[in-house]
């Protein structure tokens, strides 16, 4: 794998003709700890290595996310199949290891945890998710598929994209505005995914920082324990140093 220089921004979707990134398979494999799908920009950085510097309450909360996946209790099996596929697409989780986003969403809905508001023309959040499952199937059928989970990947992508752009129509979507549905469900999905320490390691986020705090605030600076991006690590020297076999 060629080292990439992330000082320039060519990899960013806005700057690419198709608005899509290159395959993340070109990124380094994670060597320390776990990241979702095992790729990331900070292959030797595992935020959980820092947990001895966190306060006990925060540590317990964060470790619970890693150590116990809540069972599906709110959704039916059929809903879970459709929505599990949907969450994977929204977060681009195409293989293991995956953050169990739907289980985290399910737990929140099962416990009746609300976000503190509901749009006047939307049902309450629990009902929104159930209708989303129906609406995804309905939209997939408009493309000739039997249902959403069984549809071809490009159909699934088109359906999700139309939802995100607020462009779904017919059946469920004539009663529940797609743009607001997207706001409600994407909020829950992103909160689940980026609350998980695997995702923090992937993006090189410093994580909880109490009571240690941060001291090096300047551009291009990092604390001595914060992860170095991949391009700063010479693969040859690195494998030698760590006594592992390079390929």
């Amino acid at each position: 794998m060629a080292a990439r220089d992330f000082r320039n921004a060519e990899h960013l979707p806005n700057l690419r003709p198709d608005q899509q990134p290159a395959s993340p398979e070109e990124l380094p494999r994670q060597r320390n700890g776990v990241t979702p799908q095992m790729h990331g920009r900070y292959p030797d950085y595992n935020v959980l290595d820092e947990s001895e510097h966190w306060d006990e309450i925060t540590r317990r909360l964060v470790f619970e996310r890693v150590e116990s996946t809540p069972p599906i209790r709110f959704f039916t099996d059929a809903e879970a199949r459709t929505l599990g596929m949907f969450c994977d697409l929204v977060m681009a989780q195409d293989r293991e290891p995956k953050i169990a986003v739907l289980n985290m969403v399910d737990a929140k809905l099962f416990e009746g945890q609300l976000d503190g508001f509901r749009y006047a023309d939307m049902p309450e959040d629990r009902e929104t998710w159930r209708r989303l499952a129906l609406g995804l199937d309905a939209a997939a059928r408009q493309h000739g598929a039997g249902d959403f989970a069984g549809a071809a990947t490009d159909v699934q992508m088109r359906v999700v994209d139309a939802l995100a752009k607020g462009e779904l129509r017919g059946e469920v979507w004539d009663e529940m505005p797609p743009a607001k549905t997207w706001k409600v469900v994407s909020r829950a999905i992103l909160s689940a995914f980026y609350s998980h320490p695997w995702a923090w390691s992937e993006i090189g986020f410093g994580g909880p920082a109490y009571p240690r705090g941060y001291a090096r605030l300047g551009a291009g600076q990092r604390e001595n324990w914060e992860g170095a991006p991949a391009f700063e690590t010479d693969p040859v020297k690195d494998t030698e140093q760590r006594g592992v076999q390079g390929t």
Partner: protein
Amino acid sequence: MSRRHELRTLLRGALRPPDNDSAFLLDVHRRAVPQERMARYDDSYPVDLVIVGAGAGGGTLAQRLARRGWKVVVLESGPFWDPDEDWVSDEAGSHRLYWTDERITGGSDPVELGKNNSGHGVGGSMVHYAGYCPRFHPSDFEVRSRDGVGEDWPIRYWDLKPHYERLELELPVAGDYWPWGDPHRYPHTPHPIAGGADAARDGAKKLGIEMRVGPVGITNGSFGNRPHCIYRGYCLQGCKVNAKASPLVTHIPDAIEHGAEIRAHCMVTEVVLDDASGQVTGVRYVSDGRERFQRADAVAVAGYSIETPRLLLNSTSRRFPHGLANNNDQVGRCVMVQGAPQVAGRFPDEMRMYKAPPPEICSEQFYETDEQRGFVRGFAIQTVGPLPIEHAQHIAGHGHWGPALREYMRDYNHWYTLGILAELLPQPENRVTVVSDVTDQNGIPVARMDYSQCENDRKNIAFGKQTIHDIFEAAGAQDFLITDRYAHLVGGCRMGSDPEQSVVDADQRCWDVPNLFIADGSVMPTQGSANPALTIMALASRLAERLELKRTGSDSAARRRRSRRPRRRAPIQAGGG
């Protein structure tokens, strides 16, 4: 600026603020507010004042009046927070800090409530506010006369100025010399800023835009028993360090020391009116599932711009069939939010915007009306430091999901974010109402808020958004992500000089109910482009002064002397809390 204030400023944080020992009453070894010596009043004891809500307005008012010897009970629906035990350095885990009961949001430009809006618990929304503490400009109090929009306030900037000065010492506020509005200094020196803020400031300079550090309610150096900020960036999740100001650490300890009772986990469901006298007699509230009634000589509602109108609208009586103080259909009207779009800029260096407090630098250069821009009033520019979940939502707001969103998030460390606060104008149809067929766990109808922008609002937001985009461009940003959002929420029970057009008078007293006061952000007739918390506190501080003035001449001088140390002498009874 008075000479005395100037002198204090020179001495920076070395001095105690006058008449407020909160920072010194905190414990050195734990973060929780000591409550062992707190007074407990019995429900049947007619306290001088019951305050609904222990937030920016309620907390400040309680401290001021307790200092003056008033017997005050504050009923707060949320918990009495212990930062050590209850708060986490974690975005998703901070859910409990927000007001998460159901609310309905409508209109053509609906406002997302929840975590972006109001708090719950002792300290109120300031527990998870960012920490910006600017003053309003003198012009904010007279926009109708100057610009022909909105409403003039029944008071002027100069009425609040002494309270601003006092509060800036109490919080304390740190920042550069402030050249905008009424120019002034801050008691604490500016905090260091992170790389991203540096870049933004340079970019702005190239365009002739000046950005200055602060003003933030975060101690720079220790302050009493509150330690220095550790730059961990979790201000919006509650400051576990006690470095960031909120009433929980700035006013509640001193209020308790002077005999106020802060009664947590008490949801007020009705302000009770005696139809015969037309006066309020106390409040009904629910605690531990049990309904109770606290008697009081006067009531001040400080529940935030949604809950305050909701409580009044749900308090009906023969005299006020449409809600307390609402015979002119003004309660709930003219709620306002600020337009707060954000632009993130991408830099070659890693900026790691999760470090340092999110509020770093600010510009008020575009605050006042400039006719060439094609709209009236203006906006402020501020930094915001979104943590991963917030930044992911920003990216989704720009329109990315799936592989593109993941790629942008992997690039998180290279980004930095600026936002604006645009002054949106008050409109009567932007209002809080109650929905009779949707109720909360106590059977009380929930609030509905409708919000729509006007043409001036849209132009203001668009101009501001372009300006911060230009700043990043000048700073050498390589890519941009843009998202629309709102911030802050004030108004809904505005003060005014005409009873037909307002809910309270210049002393924040309800026009039709002589012993009912509103003491939070809902009294604001307009909102400027400044973050509201300091002004809400200043209003509460002034209200306390007005209330005390009203009492002087009766028995209050004697009373004041008598109750200098009320904790030990007041007829406090057990079993009240």
